[in-house]
């Protein structure tokens, strides 16, 4: 994975010093809260319900064992011994004291990490496929270009005070695990007829109050021009994006209001100018420099056929279940991708204790080239594991309560922090996710239901991606009481779709039964081995509406 050179390290160190100075001035009263707010928000420090919250950047979701050990230490020393992995592949600490954050940042900097631009109206952490570098059908490792974008966007002088936050995601496989079509910019790595790698650029996707699927604004941007192209999109947005209304200030609204054709025209005109100037042309040497860090590890020559694994699975039902859902295909024979569920029954989706972090870091060190990934579904992942080690890896994970065999199943839910932590929340989301996981805990029933994405957000900001869940739940507030609205048919992948609202919202007491009913309706209607979303696309919302509200 990428390692800092002296420039990267110096910049992060300077940031720590700058933030330390800002905190000192704030605590001394030289800086008003209003002035300080901008600085702290550019550095991932929010004020939440119970305390401050610190969001630590995990660029494109890749971590080393050393970094994960450090994160574990930090959560013990400065927080309450756990962290929360988010849908942007970042890590949130829920209880840091403002006075400690400069020291905390210095510790992060010692392992090449930071909190730069994890909040604020700037270009946020670029996210990507957690299977990067391992997926069989990948065109190139997307993290190379993610790192290029990370550097270009860090402290960008022109684009740090945008109308609103700006999120970029990159996918290098046709099956989109990075949800690029619901990002401000989504980049699909493609190959042209001549076999050259280029970038298809989507813009104006997003969730929140007005969920919209992105529009294609660039068909094939050559590698050397990618930054020039991104700069063009950002400049058009910074100059013409709305600043009069918080809810209309994302680029999706600009694209929507002026139209995709006009945006394409404006971006193309700007791109011509930027390209002509030439200062943003990406040198091949720089790409090569970064690519070296993402070179595949030294794989052994192995066979996919490992009889011991089958034997172990025959004896251990838990392992057999885990193999069914938590393993993904790897490009190298004899290797596999291990997806680690952070969704045990009855606990908080995405939470991970310091001890669990240490366990994962140790396992990665022993079995997975010391590399850990964070998935936007709030899970972890070991990208390169020998098939023959699977049982040992499983056993070690399970001993740390990390062996839940539910990846892609209904209890592998995405849930934002919601009203249990978040200052903007209308209703709790974790509490609902917990009850749902308890209701659906029977693993055989989950397997029978098949792949189903169940996502919950505690308010319209949609951090829990409810619009693109096959089933989405949105918490709303009615006079201080929590209600839950249900959407059906959303999808975040290459078939991206925004879910349809099924009808009036449910009370906290009703919502779990309502989801249960929806699942039963689907099981009744499904044909063959259809998964939920296929059935839904075939039958539409009506049968669900009819039965759901008739039953209540």
């Amino acid at each position, binding site marked *: 994975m990428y390692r800092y050179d002296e420039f990267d390290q110096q910049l992060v160190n300077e940031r720590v010093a700058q933030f330390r100075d800002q905190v000192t001035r704030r605590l001394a009263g030289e800086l008003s809260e209003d002035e300080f707010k901008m600085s702290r928000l550019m550095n991932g420090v929010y004020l939440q319900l119970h305390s401050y919250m610190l969001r630590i950047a995990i660029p494109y979701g890749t971590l080393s064992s050393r970094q994960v050990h450090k994160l574990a230490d930090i959560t013990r020393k400065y927080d309450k011994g756990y962290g929360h992995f988010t849908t942007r592949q970042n890590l949130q600490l829920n209880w840091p004291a403002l006075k400690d954050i400069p020291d905390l940042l210095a510790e992060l900097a010692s392992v090449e990490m930071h909190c730069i631009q994890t909040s604020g109206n700037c270009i946020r952490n670029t996210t990507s496929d957690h299977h990067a570098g391992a997926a069989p059908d990948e065109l190139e490792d997307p993290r190379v270009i993610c790192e290029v974008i990370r550097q270009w966007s860090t*402290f960008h002088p022109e684009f740090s*005070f945008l109308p609103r936050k700006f999120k970029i995601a990159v996918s290098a496989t046709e099956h989109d695990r990075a949800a690029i079509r619901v990002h401000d910019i989504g980049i699909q790595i493609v190959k042209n007829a001549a076999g050259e790698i280029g970038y298809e650029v989507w813009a104006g996707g997003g969730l929140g109050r007005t969920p919209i699927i992105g529009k294609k604004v660039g068909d094939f941007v050559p590698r050397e021009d990618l930054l020039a192209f991104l700069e063009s999109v950002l400049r058009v947005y910074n100059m013409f994006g709305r600043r009069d209304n918080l809810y209309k200030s994302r680029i999706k609204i600009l694209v929507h209001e002026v139209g995709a054709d006009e945006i394409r025209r404006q971006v193309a005109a700007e791109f011509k100018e930027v390209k002509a100037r030439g200062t943003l042309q990406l040198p091949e040497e720089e790409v090569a420099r970064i690519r070296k860090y993402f070179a595949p590890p030294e794989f052994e020559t192995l066979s996919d056929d490992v009889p011991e694994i089958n034997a172990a699975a025959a004896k251990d039902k838990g392992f057999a279940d885990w193999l069914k859902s938590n393993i993904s295909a790897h490009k190298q024979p004899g290797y596999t991708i291990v997806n680690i569920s952070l969704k045990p029954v009855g606990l908080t989706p995405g939470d991970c204790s310091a001890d669990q972090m240490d366990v994962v870091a140790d396992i990665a060190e022993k079995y997975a080239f010391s590399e850990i990934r964070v998935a936007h579904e709030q899970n972890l992942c070991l990208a390169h594991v020998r098939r023959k080690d699977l049982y040992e890896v499983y056993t070690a994970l399970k001993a740390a309560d990390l062996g839940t065999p539910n990846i892609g199943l209904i209890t592998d839910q995405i849930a934002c922090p919601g009203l249990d932590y978040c200052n903007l929340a209308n209703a709790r989301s974790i509490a609902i996710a917990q009850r749902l996981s308890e209701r659906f805990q029977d693993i055989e029933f989950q397997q029978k239901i098949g792949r189903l994405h169940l996502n919950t957000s505690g308010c319209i900001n949609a951090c829990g991606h409810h619009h693109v869940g096959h089933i989405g739940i949105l918490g709303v507030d009615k006079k201080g009481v929590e209600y839950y609205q249900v959407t059906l048919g959303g999808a975040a992948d290459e078939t991206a779709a925004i879910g349809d609202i099924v009808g009036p919202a449910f009370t906290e007491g009703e919502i779990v039964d309502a989801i249960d009913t929806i699942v039963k309706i689907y099981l009744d209607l499904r044909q063959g081995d259809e998964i939920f979303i296929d059935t839904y696309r075939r039958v539409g919302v009506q049968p669900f509406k009819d039965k759901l509200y008739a039953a209540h």
Partner: protein
Amino acid sequence: MQLIKDGAIIADEWTALADEDALPATGPVIVSLDRFKLEQNLLLARKDKLGIRLKSGEAPEQIKDFLDRLALVALEFPAYRNGRAFSYAYLLRERYGFKGELRAVGAVLRDQFNYLARVGFDAYEVRDNITPEIFKLSVSAFEHDYQPSADSKPAVLSLRQRRLAAQKAT
């Protein structure tokens, strides 16, 4: 309010004219874009220096043909969160080649000078509590920058290229 230019506090020689103010016979003046459009000939005929002040919605493209007659362009920041003028400044410097004074007016915070200087501002109307030391601290927070902008510092990208060339040479 005071003026910081090239890192020092200096006396402001310019008169910022409101649209209803009478045009003085002599002395450098800054006028709004509206007024410039109405009184263009009169303003350009004066011997003294002329400056134009652009609001947040007024893109500099509208004045690009007059830039060689202007000694100053002031860009308004209606709120410190409103970063539109960062793009305006960059375009004025890098695309339209404006060489005069580029002045930031309105709501700017002390921790923004670094960004402002990089996109080409060289003058700032600031609150009285901003000292040259504070200004210096802000603009020198980072020695290097990843991306090229409108300042003369080489970006990290070119520093890396240089390092590579030096390695090859030895």
